[in-house]
């Protein structure tokens, strides 16, 4: 049964301290090398392109403005996914929960359009969070009661949420003036405004930062945070130490849905001012990238969301200036994801090539 040599991994005895930063750096360099090729093929200079992606947006007030705007939905979805993953709950459904949050914010906006801001905004925001949590409740319940793996259930509810949005927009919520499949603009009370006039950065970004800060404190400085990590990393040991793992996972799933829902709700209230099918630009799926690259930590999520937003904004400007298609931004982020997870695995192992199956 000998054949082609297949790469195998052997566990490394001990892990030197320099290995983690080194492997992440190696992953970043690999990403640059891998993505330099298509940039070159596209006829652009890779170093010019990378400086556009990473540095250019930071050099102007307008660039930073756009960056923070682009980072906002990723902060929500990244945090939502990180929270769930931390507790060992693989929520792949942030996309659907994000959309549900958009719906949740739109309901009061359309039917109670005359409410004053003091009532309207809290109502819409709570509506968004509740809708996101509601979208998460079935998979969470199935996991808790039936032990049913949540990956499939959360994933499959994503297209359902999109179809629900489309159904509403093609049906009862179709725009009454234009007839386009997008909702009417929400009432004036339902607007989350910019932080400073002339800026596009809105208070939703501030809310995201507050959530990140709260998550940081909970993750790092509370008993709950310690218990969550224990449940996520070693559920058996957590139960041994008297932690109610099922309840923690259940609540984490719902709160994760609520945070993703808030993201969708903010996107409606602060950016689109109406519900449209395009409110989520795969933010839920990208949230998985953000959470994974951010090491499932609050600060990590914040940092990576800003980095990916930087690349996105940079990619748009590169597309104008260097005629480099803007999708390059997403290519860079997904390659980065794959190289980083690979590096983190390889860090633990040595790679050997063997032909036969002998075990040591």
């Amino acid at each position, binding site marked *: *049964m000998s*054949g082609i040599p*297949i*790469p*195998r*991994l052997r566990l490394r005895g001990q892990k030197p301290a320099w290995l983690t930063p080194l492997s992440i750096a190696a992953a970043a360099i690999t990403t640059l090398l891998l993505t330099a090729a*298509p940039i070159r*093929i*596209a006829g652009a200079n890779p170093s010019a392109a990378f400086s556009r992606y990473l540095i250019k947006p930071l050099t102007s007030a307008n660039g930073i403005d756009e960056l923070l705007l682009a980072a906002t939905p990723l902060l929500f979805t990244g945090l939502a996914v990180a929270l769930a993953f931390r507790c060992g709950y*693989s929520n*792949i459904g942030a996309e659907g929960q994000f959309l549900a949050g958009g719906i949740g914010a739109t309901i009061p906006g359309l039917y109670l359009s005359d409410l004053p801001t003091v009532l309207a905004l809290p109502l819409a925001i709570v509506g968004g969070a509740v809708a996101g949590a509601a979208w998460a409740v*079935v*998979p969470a319940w*199935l996991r808790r*009661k*039936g*032990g*049913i*793996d949540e*990956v*499939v*259930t959360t*994933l*499959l*509810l*994503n*297209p*359902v949420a*999109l*179809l*629900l949005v*489309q*159904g509403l927009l*093609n*049906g009862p919520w179709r725009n009454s003036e234009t007839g386009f499949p997008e909702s009417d603009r929400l009432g004036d009370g339902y607007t989350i405004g910019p932080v400073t006039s002339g800026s596009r950065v809105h208070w939703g970004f501030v809310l995201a930062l507050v959530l990140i800060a709260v998550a940081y404190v909970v993750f790092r400085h509370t008993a709950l945070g310690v218990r969550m990590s224990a449940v996520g990393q070693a559920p058996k040991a957590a139960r041994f130490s008297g932690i109610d793992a099922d309840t923690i996972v259940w609540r984490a799933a719902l709160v994760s849905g609520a945070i993703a829902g808030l993201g969708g709700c903010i996107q409606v209230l602060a950016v689109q001012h109406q519900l449209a099918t395009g409110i989520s630009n*795969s933010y839920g*799926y*990208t949230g*998985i*990238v953000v959470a*994974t690259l951010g090491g499932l930590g609050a600060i990590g999520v914040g940092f990576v969301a800003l980095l990916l937003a930087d690349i996105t904004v940079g990619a748009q400007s590169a597309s104008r200036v260097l005629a480099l*298609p*803007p*999708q*390059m931004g*997403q*290519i860079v*982020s*997904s*390659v980065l*994801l*794959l190289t980083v*997870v*690979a590096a983190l*695995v*390889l860090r633990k192992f040595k790679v050997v090539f063997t032909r036969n*199956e002998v*075990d040591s």
Partner: protein
Amino acid sequence: MSLGFWIGLIGATFAIATPLMWASLGNLLNEKSGVMNLGIEGTMYVGAFGGLAIASESGSIWLGLIGAIIFGCLAGLLVAVFTVTMGVNQHVVGIGTTLLLVSACEFVNRLRYGSGSLAKIEKFGDIIDDAGPLSQNWMTYFVFLILAPLMWWTLRSTGFGLRLTAVGEHPEAADVAGINVNRTRYVALVVGGALMALGGAYITLAELGTFTLGIISGRGWVAVALVIFGRWKVWPTVAGAVLFAATDALQLRLAITSTFGAVPNELLIALPYLVVVGALAIWGRKLRYPGAYLKPYRRA
């Protein structure tokens, strides 16, 4: 409704079911080996775009088809390296692969063809003309009459099928029986990737003859649902694909027939997803996932 309505419906059902069939049979192969490949959406995308691009560049639709197969194999190989050899979290890798492949296709599309779409190509024609529902493309005939029975026979009546099942259910036992677990999974992912890519290629090479952005629009996720709905068996999965396609064809036709314009089509399209989630809720633990689902294998 007239007879013509029903004949048209059946014809449309087979056409709509075809890409789902290719993709879900590929996905079935993956899942039987114990790997959930969420790269399916991206793999279909690369099959659709890559196949058409090569066909239109080379002027040969068959070269396009071969290109799609190669892209599918490579996508499967990528997922295999990460999930089988490295044992990385399968859904993270899958989502990452989908994001990568979709953006890579759109990148090349934009670069090569600008904001317009690819030139139309001479697509695969129906192999029987004017035969009502039987007027289908060869890819439709192939997937229903050859691939599905072949897959069923392979899984049931060959040593490979037995070994694949053993690897997906109980890799330790397979290992003790002298089966190379990881190599089997590589084969399943690479072949499965090719089938998924062919599902995507059908849409561009046989159905539309052109490419537009977002062309797969969640069909990969439908294939994931169909395999679970079919409880990892070939014929129930086929039945699920036909059922889904029929629903889809019906809603398209109802929407055209103006009196039914108010029926929420989206609800019908959402049905298969909801049915699978509902089935999971009802069958609960009784639904048998492959025993080693989502688990990388490494000898103790």
